[in-house]
Each structure stands twice: as structure tokens, then as C-alpha cells.
């Protein structure tokens, strides 16, 4: 018995005992091929998936290394069948390769004739292929490069794309490293991405994904299209690029609902790209309007389906996906793999936090006991109204006030989902400004600026702030209601307070919930996600908070 830190389960999950002396070593050995699924305090769960194994193959690991890592660190005998399965799965990647043929252009080359015969006979794949050049080579229509990769992944024979990239229109971009430098993991991420050509970099919120993007652009030195989730995030990108690179304001265009600028570096929102008029996507020509050398996808886990379809046509351009998580709620991880590219870099949250790059967070759940009247109201309400009733209970208001008062020197964000409730909170907090969907972009920018400068201490925000706003000094976040049990929302909200504080202060994340209601149930679901990410949270009674002992 080796007594290693790893336990292999029959459902292909790997359990890593964190307190084991060898755990760091084992983590390093399995991280390239196993997806980290949960990382609670003591035992982390990794999962072996075909995609994960192929990601590892794409990164140059072979089955022998994987099997060796499993066997070396496993506490108990690893089932033989699992090892065989791992080897077989990994062996499937790269049997087919997409390469550029000097005469025939894009071709699919097979290192295993039987596999080629198999896929040629697939009904869905056959139309994408052209003439058979010889027994192992078949021509591919260049326009089908992406769709072919998608289809091949679906039938379990993922192709290795070695057909290279066009350089695109050159444009000088340099990092301005006057008073800062790339952190080691950021540099590593860029290197890995550049070596692979295309792919996804996975970094936690607050770990500086924008800088990875900027560094990649400096590497490409070409015109770049950046796709972001919304306008505010786009402005944030712009601000960051101007600050960190040699790019000037004039070189960066914004392509959004408001402006339609196309410049050497253009930042477009997902929303505008997917707007349809009379059933047609109006803004697709943006992709063809310039000879882009690099396309950056921010928050790739939110990439909408139409963008996938477009991306399928852009396979000859370098693509960089940035995200905090590869897990998509719609399960289209396979499309990210085949269209954007394999995972090129991944660092677990806790590791980066331990290195001091993101602020440690202290999570607290405050439980509010509803009044008898509220309880009766809740008990007799229609099921669909119940959550709102519980989440917006007025009993929460004094508690929110108390929390804000407990942190007199910190910037505080109060995040909620219901506008009426936000109004009430604003009133309770002596008229703290509210940012919601109807707030104009200009007004938002102004408020954010004031908040950033410390002129505003408290902001009350609706769901609009869920994504990609950058509030470096928000040290306290209070969430008072949410979108049911969305785990992604929880991650994003937590991300608001994870940016490093200039004085290394502790970040606080409060959730106010109504006891014994759906609110508490949903909160439990969201918190499970936090716990799985390794954040322990404490539960506090509202009464203890209001009347400290």
C-alpha cells in the first residue's frame, strides 16, 4: 500500500486529501488531465473526462504520464479497467490531424487508416470532406474547419489542428511595463497560449485576466477583436489597455449598442453581435471587416450560441478564451474545446489566493427570523411568489444597515435582484445611490468613478453589476437577494470583493437570508458552490449581529 494522497473512485473522480504531505506534488501531477470539480477544505475532487484527457494530450502529456501519476499517488490499487480506459481515450486524440497541404490546402490526415474510414462514413461528416487524396489524406473545405472539428469531437475522434494561423494585419502593440510587471502565472498563461496557438486560459476572478489578454496582444502584434459580455466590461478593457499598453485611445474602438467604431483594436459586446433584425444577424460583418490577427473571448463560459457558429468560420485566426470556469450551465464545453481550443492554462483559485494575488474572503451568512406576519404571508403565498416574498422581507433592512455600520472604513456593495427592495435599501442606508438596468452608462461610469475614488462609500447595485465591472476597493459585499440558486452569480459576486486590496485587508462577503424559507434553501445551494471552491463560511443569527454580546 503506497498510502498516497489520491483515491480513485469507480465513477472516475479522483479524491485528493489536502492535508496529506504529498498532496501538492500529487496535485501538480494530476492537474494537467483532471478537471478540478470541487475544492472544499479537506478533500478536493477531480474528475477524469475525455475532454480533460484530450486537453492533456493537446498540451503534450501522454497516457503513460497519466497512468503513472494515478498509480504513483493512489492510496489503493487503481482499477485496471480505468487505466486501460484512460489510455484508450487519450489515444483517440490526434489520430486525425488537420494540416495545411502545400498543394491541396487544408487536409485531414489520418495516422490510423481505420479511423479515417470510420469518420468518412459518418453521415454528418462526409459532406464536409472533399476529394480523397490518398489512403490517409482527404481534402477539407477550409470553411468547414471549425464544424469538422466539432463533428469529429462528437464522434470521439478529436482532431489535432496543426493547420496554423494567418498572421492578420500587423499592428504594433507593446506592454508598458514602467511601474508594474506581469505576475508569474500570467506570464506562464500567455506563454502556454502562444505555444498552443489557440485555446482557453482559466483564471479566477480578480487574477488579472485582462492583463493576460493584453500580453497576448503584445505577443501577436496584430489587429485584435475583443468580445466582452457588456459595455461596462468593454470600457474596463479599454481603460486597462490604455493604461498597460502602448495603445492610445484612438487605436481602440468600441462596437456596442451606442457606438459602432471599427479600429485596429475593437471591443465588441456579445449582445450587439447577436442582435438580430428581421431574423438576420446585423453585425456579423464585423468579423470580416478587418483582417484580425487575434480574437479574444472574455468570459468564454458565457459565450452565446450564435457566436459559436461564427467562431466556427474563424478557425484560421488565433483565438484566446478567458474565463474563470470551463463549466458551462448549458453543457457546451465540447464546443469550447473544438472551436476556441483546448485549455492552455489553469490555476486553482486557492493557489493564487495563497500567493497573495487575490484577497482572501470571509463569507458570512446572516439568518434573519421573519416576523409572524411575514411568515403567515409567506406560508399562504403562491409558490411562484414565495422566493421574492422571503428574499425581500423588510426584516432584512435593519440587518443590512447594521452590516454596513460594522464596516465604517470600507467600501461596501449591496447587491440585490429586486428593484423595490433596492429602493428600500437605499432609503435605509440614507440614500445610497442605486445602479440598475435603467441607469445610463454615463451615470454608471460617474458613480463607479466616485466609488473608486472613495467619494461614495456604499453602492446599491442590481444584477447589472454581476459581470465584469471592476471595483478594486470594494472590500465588503452584501447580497440580499439573487437569481434563485445560480452558482455562477455567486461566483461573480464573490469576484467583486476578491480584487487585491492595497493594504491587504480582509474582504467580507455577506449573504442575508430569511430562515426556514426558500431563500435559505437557495442560499444553501449557492453556498455549496462557495464551499466547493474552498471558502468556509460562518452562519450568524441576525439577533447576534444586531445585539452583540
Amino acid at each position, binding site marked *: *500500500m503506497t498510502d498516497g494522497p489520491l*483515491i*480513485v*473512485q*469507480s*465513477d472516475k*473522480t479522483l*479524491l485528493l*486529501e489536502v492535508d496529506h504531505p504529498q498532496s501538492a506534488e500529487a496535485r501538480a501531477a494530476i492537474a494537467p488531465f483532471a478537471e478540478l470539480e*470541487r475544492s*472544499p*477544505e*479537506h*478533500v478536493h*475532487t477531480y474528475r477524469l473526462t475525455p475532454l480533460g484527457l484530450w486537453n492533456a494530450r493537446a498540451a503534450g502529456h501522454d497516457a503513460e504520464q497519466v497512468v503513472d501519476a494515478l498509480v504513483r499517488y*493512489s*492510496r*489503493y*490499487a*487503481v*482499477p*485496471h*479497467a480505468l487505466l486501460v480506459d484512460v489510455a484508450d481515450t487519450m489515444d483517440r486524440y490526434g489520430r486525425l490531424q488537420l494540416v495545411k497541404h502545400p498543394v491541396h490546402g487544408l487536409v485531414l490526415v489520418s495516422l490510423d487508416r481505420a479511423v479515417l474510414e470510420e469518420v468518412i462514413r459518418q453521415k454528418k461528416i462526409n459532406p464536409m470532406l472533399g476529394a480523397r487524396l490518398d489512403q490517409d489524406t482527404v481534402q477539407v473545405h477550409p470553411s468547414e474547419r471549425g464544424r469538422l472539428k466539432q463533428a469529429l469531437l462528437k464522434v470521439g475522434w478529436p482532431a489535432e489542428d496543426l493547420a496554423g494561423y494567418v498572421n492578420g494585419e500587423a499592428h504594433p502593440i507593446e506592454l508598458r511595463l514602467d511601474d508594474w510587471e506581469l505576475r508569474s502565472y500570467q506570464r506562464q498563461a500567455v506563454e502556454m497560449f502562444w505555444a498552443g496557438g489557440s485555446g482557453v486560459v482559466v483564471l479566477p476572478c480578480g487574477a488579472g485576466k485582462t492583463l493576460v489578454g493584453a500580453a497576448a496582444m503584445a505577443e501577436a502584434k496584430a489587429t485584435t477583436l475583443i468580445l466582452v459580455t457588456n459595455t461596462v466590461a468593454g470600457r474596463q478593457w479599454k481603460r486597462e489597455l490604455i493604461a498597460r499598453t502602448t495603445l492610445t485611445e484612438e487605436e481602440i474602438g468600441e462596437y456596442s449598442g451606442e457606438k459602432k467604431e471599427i479600429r485596429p483594436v475593437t471591443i465588441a459586446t456579445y449582445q450587439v453581435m447577436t442582435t438580430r433584425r428581421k431574423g438576420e444577424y446585423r453585425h456579423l460583418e464585423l468579423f470580416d471587416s478587418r483582417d484580425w490577427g487575434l480574437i479574444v473571448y472574455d468570459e468564454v463560459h458565457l459565450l452565446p450560441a450564435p457566436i459559436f457558429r461564427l467562431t466556427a468560420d474563424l478557425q484560421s485566426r488565433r483565438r484566446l478564451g478567458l474565463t474563470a470556469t470551463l463549466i458551462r450551465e448549458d453543457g457546451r464545453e465540447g464546443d469550447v474545446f473544438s472551436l476556441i481550443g483546448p485549455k492552455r492554462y489553469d490555476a486553482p483559485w486557492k493557489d493564487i489566493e495563497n500567493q497573495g494575488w487575490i484577497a482572501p474572503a470571509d463569507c458570512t*451568512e446572516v439568518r434573519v427570523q421573519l416576523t409572524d406576519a411575514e411568515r403567515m404571508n409567506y406560508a399562504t403565498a403562491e409558490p411562484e411568489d414565495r422566493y421574492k416574498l422571503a428574499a425581500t422581507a423588510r426584516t432584512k433592512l435593519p440587518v443590512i444597515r447594521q452590516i454596513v455600520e460594522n464596516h465604517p472604513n470600507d467600501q461596501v456593495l449591496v447587491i440585490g435582484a429586486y428593484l423595490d427592495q433596492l429602493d428600500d435599501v437605499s432609503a435605509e442606508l440614507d440614500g445610497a445611490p442605486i445602479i440598475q438596468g435603467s441607469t445610463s452608462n454615463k451615470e454608471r461610469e460617474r458613480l463607479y468613478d466616485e466609488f473608486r475614488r472613495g467619494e461614495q462609500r456604499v453602492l446599491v447595485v442590481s444584477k447589472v453589476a454581476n459581470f465584469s465591472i471592476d471595483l478594486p476597493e470594494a472590500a465588503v459585499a452584501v447580497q440580499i437577494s439573487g437569481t434563485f440558486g445560480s452558482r455562477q452569480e455567486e461566483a461573480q459576486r464573490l469576484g467583486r470583493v476578491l480584487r487585491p486590496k492595497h493594504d491587504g485587508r480582509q474582504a467580507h462577503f455577506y449573504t442575508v437570508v430569511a*430562515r*426556514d424559507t426558500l431563500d435559505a434553501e437557495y442560499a*444553501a445551494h449557492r*453556498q*455549496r458552490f462557495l*464551499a*466547493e471552491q474552498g*471558502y*468556509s*463560511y*460562518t*452562519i450568524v443569527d441576525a439577533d447576534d449581529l444586531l445585539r452583540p454580546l
Partner: protein
Amino acid sequence: MAAPTETGAAARATSLSGWLRGRTDAELAELLRRRPELALPTPADLSALASRLGVRSSVQRAVDGLNAFTLRVLELLTLADDPVRLADVIQLVGGAGITAAAADLTALGLVWGEADDLHIVPAVRDALGTYPAGLGRPAVVLFRHVPDVQLAPVLRALGLPPATQPRASASIAEVLTDPDRLEGLLASADPAERAVLDRLAAGPPVGRVRDAQRSTALTELAPPHRLIAKALLVPIDAQNVELPREVGVALRATPFGAVGAEPPTIEVRERRPDELDRGGTTAVLDTVRLVEALAESWAAHPPAQLRAGGIGVRELRRTAKELALDEPIAALIAEVAMAAGLINATHGIQPVYLPTAGYDIWRRHKSARRWSELALAWLAMTRQPSLVGQRGERDRLITALGPDAERGTIPALRRLVLTTVAALAPGAAPVSRAAVLDRLSWQAPRRAAGQRPLADAVLAEADVLGITAAGGLTGYSRTLLAGSREVADQVLTGAMPVPVEYFLVQPDLTIVVPGPPSAELAAELALTADLESSGGASVYRVTESSLRRALDAGRAGSDIAAMISERSRTPVPQALQYLIDDLSRRHGALRSGTATAYLRCDDEALLARVLADRGVAGLQLRRIAATVAVSSAPVHRVLDLLRGAGYAPAAESPDGELIALDGEAPRAPSRQPLRAVRSARAADPAINLAELVRRVRSGEALTEMSRRAPALAQQVPGVTSAAMMGELRDAIRQGRQILLEVAGTDGQQTRHQLLPISMAGGVVRGHEPGDRSLRSFPLHRITAVSVFGEGADDTV
């Protein structure tokens, strides 16, 4: 008392029994060891043994047990004319190892005689079938059955004068036996024809042809018909052609075909035996867990038994999904559980499959014991789970637990397969399964060659069940196969990871048991949490519903919290503590109970009076609300007693039972677990074989002597004549051996050789030669006595 074989022409045996007489005791013992059925019951003498050697079923068994090479040698011997000179055969095929193979065949009693004078036991030819060595019948036999009309063009083609049968067939056969002419004929075959010939030469020598008897005079003939015209193929009926033996032999490089004298080697990867065992325990624990999970799943949702038996495809799919398995493995687990008597179909109008009472007993055993019961059941079961899901007879889908997966021969095949794997060194695991199957086909071609897919499935199943690990036979399975189950359990327990008594509780409310949980811990956790993932470790998740389950089962919130904090190696997260507290606070606000009758009365005072009435105390009425009381007595008794006590109750709802009693968990009738039938012979030590041979020998001697000495027989049944008594007395006085014929209690006549020492009290006592113990025979049962001559003593 050995009778050594006299070598040399002088002692040459002329009959099988004569040859047997010349065998040494050791040789006879070996024969009986390898063909145990010959000694059941013990043959009276060597002639009886000789005749048993020719019994068809016994010969069949012996031939089936031969390896490919020995079988081929036997086939070649049968092809030659009787008697065979081994030297001739060796000269013909020139193979090494033939002498050893022939010796083996002789030892088995399939062939007898000396090397230059071998005889085949007659039934052997029948057992080998029509086409020994994959060669057709001789040309002379084959052509004899072909009608004249068809032979005429053949004769013409060969340039022979026209003739009628049997002259025609003889002359054609003559051509084929001439090597030069045959060579010429073969050389004239074009590639298409040659391909047909080669295929038939590799065996079997019979092929199907459309319209085999069509006229060969036509032009544009297909290759087989062209070959018929050249006499290289013979039509045997309307659709089949056969390759004459001479042609087959000429086509083969060696008459052996592709059969090696040595078994094919199995490439192995050597591991330490204990490492292999540990590898197996993962599968062992998984198997035990899966059987348990299947039983629990079926107890909750019993699958219905199909009318023909077995469970439906959909039920199997559901089970597989629930257990997170592939369907074939789910079928295997179900079949094994059934064979081990852990699940069974209920009787009734709508039979379903449920765990049996045996399952409850099985569950209490230790893991090793639980597994060995499953493994033994698998070894013995006459069903082949790999057939499930395939199409069987009449294109019917073979269902799990259904009648179509029944294969009577499969336990023998399983043994054979495992014996092959067991022949590898401990710790060695074959690199590929195909090599094992090749070896198997060589070792027992007649038993295994046709069953390759099944044998492959058996190997796969053995790996799933943990009998083998990575294809290599584990130490504990080796012990189990050798028949010592207790020892196997111990070895297995030693190889298994030590059960864990603690766990780690995580803030996301999962509980991780980092190893196999002890039975007690597993039971506690099964109650309070849901199993999320298993394998080396077990991951449980505490949810509201799982905690509620524990509370429902009567655990208090504080019990659960205490259990968790006691067992946990990590601090109990606050969230879990809150969850338990919240739930136990809410638990039980609504109450429910069992009662058979209720009594309600709007008048509270009247109800109070009834409750206070001693006359109805027997009803044990209990007040659950101001106006309602309940009793566990039946309604009619409540009414009777109340009426008797002078009240005037009315039955409100005559059939109003409130709640059905929560009975025991449903269980199907018990079922005997399957066990391999171990033949009595197999276990007998060699010492018994010696005893057997001794008995046959003495029987032989008796036969011999009784031929020489006239017997003095009983004249009147039950009355021993004075003459016989006289004989006996003389024999006692002179110390001479006698031969007694005695009627046994079952009326059977047995013969005994005896050196009598006394006769008194109606009993004659004495020693049997070679036996120290005293035997006694009642006089009235002696039916005949004969006294041996002087010479007889020393031969026995």
C-alpha cells in the same frame, strides 16, 4: 503383488484385456486417475475394465480432454491401418513429440499395444467424427457413392477408359493415390480453384456448392465444378462436396496442419503476487457493493418477472443507470446475485424479483466472505450473462435472469479457462486476452475452440468480479479454486485495505470516508447521508432529505450530531450543525401513528367517562384529542366491549382501517445458492487409486482362480451344505485360501478371497489377502466355496 510388464515379442498381448493385464499397477492407477468414470463402479476384473475402455461416452470424454497436438496425433493414428507402427507415422510426418503423445494416448487407454503394434480402441474413431484431422475420406470410399453418370466425364477428363462402379471409383482412386499424377492435377488448378482447394484442405474438408451434381459437361463452370470434373472434389449430395483425403494430404505442408507440439506461449507481465491481489480487491469490493446496491434498488422498486422468466430490457436499463454501470455488467451482477441465492422471484400472480432472506444473512458477513459466496456461485452457475441482450433462438432477445441465458456446459468452460490462467506463475498477468484463448484452444480444442467468444466473456467477467486482476489470477482466487474457501477468505481479508472507522466532513456538506468503511460506519452513513461516489473511498452527501431519513428512523438530532463529531477527523462545519438543528427542530411537528379503531364523541364528558371506565380498559383507549380516542383493538371488539359496558356506540365506517401496518421489508422465498458439484473422485487421494487397482487385480485373480478351482455351491438357498462346511473346515486346518461367494444384504452376489482362521457361531472368520483386518461372513449367506490349488497362493 506387482505384475511387471513382460517386454518382448513373447509377451505381446493380442487383446485389450490381455494388454491391460500386462500393465503395471502404477500405470493402471494412472489410467483410473485420468478416466475416473472407468472405476465407477469398481470393475470386477480387467476384462470388465477392458470393455469399459470401449464405452463410447467414456472415450468421448477422454478425447475431449486431449490437447490439440495429442488429438492430432490420435487422428493421424486412426488414419493409418490397424495395427499401426509408430515409426511409420513418425516417418510420414516427422514431427517431434509424437512418441510422447502416443505414450500419453496409451496411458489414457485410447490406444493400446507396443510402439510397433498399436491398436486404436474402436470407439475412438466414432468419437473423432467423420473428418479426423480435418481430412476427408479416402478417394476410394468417396467415389464409390458417386453415380456412373457423373463419373463418366471425370473418367474422360483423366483419360481413363469408361467403366461402371465399382471399377470406375477404383480406377479414379488409383490416380489420386499416385503422387506424381496428383501433383500434375494440382498443378493444373488455376488460382480460383487453388483457393477453394486450400480452404478445404485446411479443414473441414466439406463445402457447400450450389447444385453440386450439375453436369460437368457444361462450359463456363464455377471453380468447384471445374474441380469436380478433375476429380479433385467429390460431390457427396446435391449441395455438398468433399475433398478426398489424398488431395488434402498432398495440399498440406505437413499432415498436421498448423498445430504445434508445444502450447502457444502467453506473454505475461510479472507483478508481485500481493500487488496483484491488491489490484483485485478493488474489483472485489466493487462487486460486493454493486450486489448490495442492486438488491436495495430492487427491494425499493422490484422488477416484474416476464412471463417467460427474467426481467425486461427496460428494467435492466433502469438498474444499470441507477448503479451507474453498463448494461452487460448490470446483467452479470444480477445473474451472480441470483445464482448466489440473494435474489429470487416471488410466487404469486404478478411475480417480481426481490432480495431473499438469504440476502439478509449474506449482508451480515464480512466482505471477504460475501465475495467468496458470489465467486463460488459464479463458478457454478449454468448461465452465461454475456448472452444477455443478444438474439437467441427464434430471434428472441435473451433477457437477464431469463431462460435463454442458460448454458449447461458453461461451468466446465469456466473451470477450463481459469485453469489455463492458473497455470501461469502467481502474480503473472497475461498481456492480452487473445493469448489465453489461443492457449485454451490448444489445450482443449474439442471443448474450447468453438466457444471462444464465451471463453472471452468468461475472462472479462472474471476481471469484473475480481477473480482475476488485470487478467492474472489472484492469490485468493487460486486458493478458492483449489477448494479451500476459508483460507481464501483469510487471504482476501489480508489483501484488502483496512476498514476505516472515521471520515472527513467538509464545508460543502460532503462526508468522505477515505477507504472502505467498516460495516458499522457504512450502516450509520447509509442512514444519514446519500452515497455520491464510491470506489477506493466513499463520498456521502448530507442533505435535508437524508437527514430527515435518519430522523424518521428514530435518530435524534443530537444523536446524529454526536455520531458525526465523534467519527469526524475534521471539525464539524457550522453549516452542518445548523442544518441538523434546523431539521430536528421542524421534525415531528406533524405526528402520525397506528390505530385500528377510533372512537369519537362530540360530548367530551362522555368520552372522559368511557376512558375512565374499567370495563373497557382492555381496549387500551388513548385520547389523542379532546373528542377523539384511539385503540389498537379491532373495531368490532371496541363496539362489543362498549355495548357490553352499557354504552350505545355506532360503527361509523365498518371497513375503516386507518393505516396498514408497516410490516417487514418484502422478501422473496429463499433459494439455495449454487455450488459446483465436486465429483467424489476428484478429491480422492492417490492412495485410493492404489486401492482401486488392488481390488481390480484381486478381482482378476479371483476370476482366474474360479476358472481353475471348481466351486462347491449351495444346493438349497439359505442352507449351507455339509460339504461346504467340510471344505471350509479343511481349509482352516490346512491354512489354505478359499474363494467365497456370498449373498449380500442387498441380494447381490460378491466374491471374496479369504484365508479362513475360524468357523464358529454360524460365522466364518478370516483375513482377506493383503488386508490385516479380520473379516467375517455368516455361513447362511455363503452360496459357494472353492478351494485354491497350491499354485494359486503366490500369484495373489
